[in-house]
């Protein structure tokens, strides 16, 4: 029983950062059908910003990181994605890869490819021990923040002026524009929000790992993307559930696969993802706009 609870706690730990990354990617996809692979680089640049500004006062550094990543997300949207907004999704996807590589290699140039150690909020990495089950404090914080951000996002989308416009744009972009929704502004707001999500991941990720490198965001963007696909492209709740699911699968397979097969764990994770998609091609939670309307 303890072992099972520990696997469950481990799964939640592993899944929480995936869920937050997936939320950032899912948000942009829902609105402009763009799979933003540069989201990983938003996280990476946030981490470097955190390191550069951490010295005097931690809350200030977190604010600086938030501001920097929001600005970066807005700039990326303005410079890279706005000119190709009307292009087909493949063009958008290729553009996002280009932005991702550009930012990554820019940081290889500026900061070098060797990872840098950076101790940040290491007290958070220590675990709470409940009975015999360990949960790092950081993961409780991460899960808490994920839930709060999800709730805030839901409130924003359902109750605020911008949120309603954003949902309208997600349902039918042209129709929304005809009705007076300002496309540029709505998309900019969405990017700013994905910037907030990326910056939060930067802070939590650095606290967990204590190391920075220009390629640190790759895995999170990849898993974040897979999670949104499982959850149902366009569904925010789906993205979060997908993130936790991939985390849970990873931990469960790590615990149950025989040692010789563990190096190929990822293959098993993705095989299960494929099975899920075969059963539910549109993911677990379909986005409303994906449904056929008569």
């Amino acid at each position, binding site marked *: 029983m303890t*072992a099972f609870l*520990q*696997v469950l*706690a*481990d799964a939640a*730990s*592993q899944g929480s*950062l*995936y869920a937050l990354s997936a939320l950032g990617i899912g948000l942009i996809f829902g609105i402009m059908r763009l799979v933003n692979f540069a989201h990983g680089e938003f996280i990476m640049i946030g981490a470097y910003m955190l390191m550069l500004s951490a010295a005097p006062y931690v809350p200030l550094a977190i604010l600086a990181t938030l501001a920097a990543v929001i600005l970066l997300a807005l700039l990326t949207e303005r410079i890279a994605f706005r000119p190709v907004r009307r292009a087909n999704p493949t063009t958008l996807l290729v553009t996002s890869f280009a932005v991702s590589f550009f930012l990554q*290699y820019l940081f*290889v140039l500026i900061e*070098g*490819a*060797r*990872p*840098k*150690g*950076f*101790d940040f909020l*290491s007290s958070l*990495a*220590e*675990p709470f021990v409940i009975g015999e089950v*360990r949960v*790092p404090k950081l*993961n409780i914080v991460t899960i808490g923040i994920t839930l709060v951000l999800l709730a805030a996002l839901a409130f924003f989308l359902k109750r605020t002026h911008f949120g309603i416009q954003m949902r309208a744009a997600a349902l039918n972009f042209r129709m929304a524009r005809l009705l007076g929704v300002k496309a540029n502004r709505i998309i900019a707001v969405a990017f700013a929000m994905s910037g907030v999500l990326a910056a939060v991941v930067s802070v939590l*990720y650095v606290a*967990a*790992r*204590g*190391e920075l*490198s220009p*390629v640190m965001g790759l*895995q*999170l963007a990849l*898993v974040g993307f897979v999670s949104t696909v499982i959850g149902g492209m366009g569904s925010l709740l789906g993205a979060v559930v997908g993130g936790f699911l991939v985390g849970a699968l*990873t*931990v469960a397979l*790590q*615990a149950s696969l025989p*040692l010789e097969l*563990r*190096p190929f*764990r*990822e293959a098993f994770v993705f095989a299960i993802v494929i099975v899920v998609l075969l059963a539910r091609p549109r993911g677990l939670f379909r986005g409303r706009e994906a449904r056929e309307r008569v």
Partner: protein
Amino acid sequence: MRRLTALLAGISLATGLGAGAVSAADDEVIVGAAIALSSILAPYDDAPFKGAQLAIDDINAKGGVLGKKIKVVTADTKSDPAQGANAAIAVIEQGAELVLVTCDFDFGSPAAITAQGKGKIAFSLCAGDPKFGVQGIGDLAFTMGNGTPNEGATLAEWAAKRGWKKAFILKDVQVEYTKSVADYFKGRWLDGLGEVAGEDTVNGQTDTQVPGQISSIKAAKDAEFILFPGGPGGPPIIRQIRAAGIDLPILMPNSLDGNYWIEAVPDLSNAFVLTMGSIYGDDPDPAVQAVMDKFKAKFGAPPVTSYVLSGYAIIEAWAKAVERAGTFDGQKVAAELEKFKDEPLVAGLTTFTDEWHINLNRPMLVIEIQNGKHKALERTRVEKVPEVKF
């Protein structure tokens, strides 16, 4: 067919002439570095290449090799194996008699294969895969790195010397090197030294967090130490292990040498790294310490890792072999290198044979980490070298 032969002859004549046209002045010999000067692998080639430059300064100050001053030319592989061959050709066309290649079998072998084809000695800055040599490339390819069988077995024997009996093996599966060190450790460890209390795998590149692995270490209750041959992404794993309250000694190979990552686990204690030498100013070997001091004087800061020694030792080794052979000819120099038996180089006593162009029993220095501070402990040499498997 005759026309083809003529064409080939023409090409080889043309390239021969081409090389002749740009080759070194009579009082110079060229060493070419076809290595990663930019992108992902650049930081790993940087330290050994700087070491090579130090050795070249030293040798030139004493009059050079066979009376010729050594001159360095470079070509960037941009950390791309596909660019390796071009980079090797670029330096060979400038007259390189020795080609330095990247610190890894997968990334360094394309340049080495090209050098082999042109009859030039290729030296990997520090590849640890035993394939780097006769078996994987050819008779002119050497590496100054310590072979993974050496590192794995040395760690096992040293752990046994500490009196430990039960190991937890955390095998990083991200690259051949990290897997191979874990496997050779296990092979030597189970050969009468101790037992395995638990095992798990991890991938330093893709495992963002490692709660599952931490649970398996906790479950191996009688483990006395953790063997962790990690690569990039290793320090975050150590941070998470320590944060989870696991204080067991951690043994690491040369890949986790250096204090550039210690900020990730600032108060790390009870950890041990096997290295070529100490970059912390306390190496018991004065020859090593002298190289470290020269490095600081020339480049303004101490080296980031001890791989600086392998770069230095390559030039040392090559210069000795050339002097003994009396020529720069690749085959003859290789024959002299193969006669090295416990040759004293700054990287340690070095042996090459006609079978092994990699070090399989060189003594290595154990560095202890306490409270985030590195301290040289002792040089230790493997007694029983495991059989190399491909």
